[in-house]
């Protein structure tokens, strides 16, 4: 039985929303940590604001709040119904998508999403402070892990799995690229003040947001260095949140689709164009070209993958 175009779209967005909920939790976790350790007056607020910028939520936030502190920012990112990227909005959207395609999901996947939403809707926002905030953020990440686990462990490797996988990695690549872009200036070679306090803090923020601050040491056996950090999150194929890693998996799933359907489509070309930015490239060349320009182009080309995928497989 062939899949409805709507079902394919729902599966794609289901994964995107779960991944986005996770990324929001990661970003908030970093912002919260940084604000706790800020040593300057007003430093805490600055960290939270730059975190909001990374999530591209600063404008929406400023429209509603005058002060960026842990309470306002965490409420905005976790619970605000008007913020389409809040964890609440993402989990609800994920569940709505999942409900629409209930028949295309395994019971394990559905139960994960359904239980996550039911549990989240029981949380009272005013209880979520301090240690409890960290618990909730940890829980959001676990939901995402559980979702991926249920997908990997129970879903038939058909077209539905491919659409869903592509959705997750497109969202992740977008998120990593945005975090890098937000702090690209601290990664530029000429800006490096070796061992400078400020930079190390900024770098830690970037690495933590990608869960990469520990594994970095295993890969580079070195202290934090700007060039390594950029390399790690852009080009390293073994780093699960790097742009390269995401593209490897997007391409694999697209190959899967072309095997199932017997044709290659515009989305395959679009993904090749993104991949060409990474394969055989070096950080030196990227820096020469301009890191910010590189990331801007990456984000635009990555969006093209979603657009062409939607056209190629009749998403609606």
């Amino acid at each position, binding site marked *: 039985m062939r899949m*409805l175009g*709507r079902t*394919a779209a729902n599966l794609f967005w289901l994964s995107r929303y779960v991944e986005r909920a996770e990324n929001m939790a990661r970003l908030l976790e970093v912002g919260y940590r940084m604000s706790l350790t800020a040593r300057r007056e007003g430093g805490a607020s600055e960290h939270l604001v730059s975190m909001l910028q990374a999530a591209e939520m600063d404008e929406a936030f400023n429209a509603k709040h005058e002060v960026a502190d842990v309470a306002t920012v965490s409420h905005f990112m976790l619970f605000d119904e008007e913020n389409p990227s809040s964890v609440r909005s993402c989990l609800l959207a994920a569940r709505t998508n999942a409900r629409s395609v209930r*028949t295309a999901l395994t019971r394990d996947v559905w*139960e994960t999403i*359904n239980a996550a939403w039911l549990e989240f809707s029981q949380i009272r926002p005013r209880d979520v402070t301090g240690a409890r905030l960290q618990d909730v953020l940890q829980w959001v990440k676990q939901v995402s892990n559980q979702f991926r686990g249920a997908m990997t462990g129970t879903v038939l490797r058909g*077209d539905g799995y491919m659409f869903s996988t592509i959705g997750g990695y497109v969202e992740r690549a977008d998120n990593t690229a945005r975090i890098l872009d937000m702090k690209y200036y601290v990664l530029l070679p000429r800006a490096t003040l070796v061992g400078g306090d400020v930079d190390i803090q900024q770098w830690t923020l970037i690495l933590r947001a990608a869960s990469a601050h520990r594994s970095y040491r295993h890969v580079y056996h070195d202290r934090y260095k700007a060039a390594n950090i950029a390399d790690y999150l852009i080009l390293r194929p073994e780093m699960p949140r790097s742009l390269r890693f995401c593209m490897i998996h997007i391409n694999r799933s697209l190959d899967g689709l072309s095997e199932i*359907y017997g044709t290659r489509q515009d989305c395959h070309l679009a993904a090749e164009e993104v991949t060409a930015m990474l394969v055989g490239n070096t950080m030196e060349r990227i820096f020469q070209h301009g890191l910010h320009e590189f990331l801007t182009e990456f984000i635009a080309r990555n969006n093209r993958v979603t657009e062409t995928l939607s056209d190629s497989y009749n998403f609606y």
Partner: protein
Amino acid sequence: MCSNGNAVGSAANAAQEYMSDSAPFDEMYNADGSVRDPYLELDAWLKEQPAQALKLMSADAEGLFRRLGITFAVYGSNESTERLIPFDIIPRIISAAEWRRLSKGIEQRVRALNAFLHDIYHRQEILKAGRVPEALILQNSAFCPEMMGLDPAKGIYSHIIGVDIVRVGPNDFYVLEDNVRTPSGVSYMLENREAMLHLAPDLFQRHKVAPVETYAENLRRTLESVAPENRQGAPTIAVLTPGIYNSAYFEHSFLADQMGAQLCEGPDLFVEGGKVYMRTTTGPERVDVIYRRIDDDFIDPLTFRPDSLLGVPGLFDAYRAGNVTLVNAPGTGIADDKAVYTYVPEIIEFYLGEKPLLNNVPTYNCTDEEQRNYVLANIEELVVKEVHGSGGYGMLVGPTSTKAMREEFKRRILARPDNYIVQPTLALSTCPTSVKAGIAPRHVDLRPYVLVGDKIRITPGGLTRVALKKGSLVVNSSQGGGTKDTWVLEE
């Protein structure tokens, strides 16, 4: 011995207390407190359960249902759009002999009702013979003139039927409603069985319970058997749902999943060249059979309600051309209209030449002055239903009503006598039900599910609905009713 004596004494007290609340006919206990045959093993099992066991099982059941997302929406409730139908852990048990009798009566009814529908939408012999008043049919809003002369596949109009039956004595069954449009609730029948197998496997080992799990397979076979004859290859089946906000969405997705059919919303389908297609990832794919869970009025904005966003423009023309089968057919509502209901015994005799095997509830016609006067004088003993109402809304149960409610209904009957039917209050049978204080009798009804295609298939048992409020006779889930797993014992 002394303590034993006390235990027996308190059990006897409990039994006495149980009997004082039960209906004239309780399905488990006879009037003298002895246990009816089909319930002997259950009785033994209940006595073996530790004090809190049933409560724990009930709590487990609730968690299980919520996790699976088996919910329904309550209209007009803003507290939460999704609720669980309470599940009662004590099964309702029907003996093989009882079921044989019931299923014969059900089969007779659905054969007659399909014959009636075919006649109404063709030669209308029954009207010409004067056995059913012409005005009652032709001026009825459930009559669908667009269906005149149309020949559905195999001549079947209502393929999926849920007959509401109540019991008032060991051999006294009454049909309350025939539900030949789009009966819901079958997923609860199936999930109740799953839950019961999960929660009380040992209870199953002590019985031979007829399976219900074959329903989805039988539904698929039924749908395939009525596919248009001009199609090529195996028929493609779609379940057409109004979408995730519909109260029965869970059931729609559940059935599509169990059958391996495509779950579609209106916008997923389109009609071109008189044929129906769905929009797939590789382009249009022909659809042969649509099990539609959308009301007649909404299925096709070109033929019926033009403001419908749920349906598929052109669907009815494709149906008329014989290029797709709609299940159930549009216009079946004329056979389960509450006013037509009173003629079902006539209908059975007219088409089958047989005496009805199941009773109809005697019904008062309020447009007749004599009957209306009786109704107004005795309303506290009667049940008043809106002719087009469903789901327990717009209904008065005389014995449990307040004076204000009765006066209100009297006013309404006088204003629109044709809008109401009135029936005596039936002493619905009771079944033991798990309640806060232990086990108590609660009133139940039964909805067996019937499939009509290449043959008639009736799933043994059906959905038992139980009024959880003490003394209440309204079993609808929207009015606080719950459900029970229903067992038909095999011999």
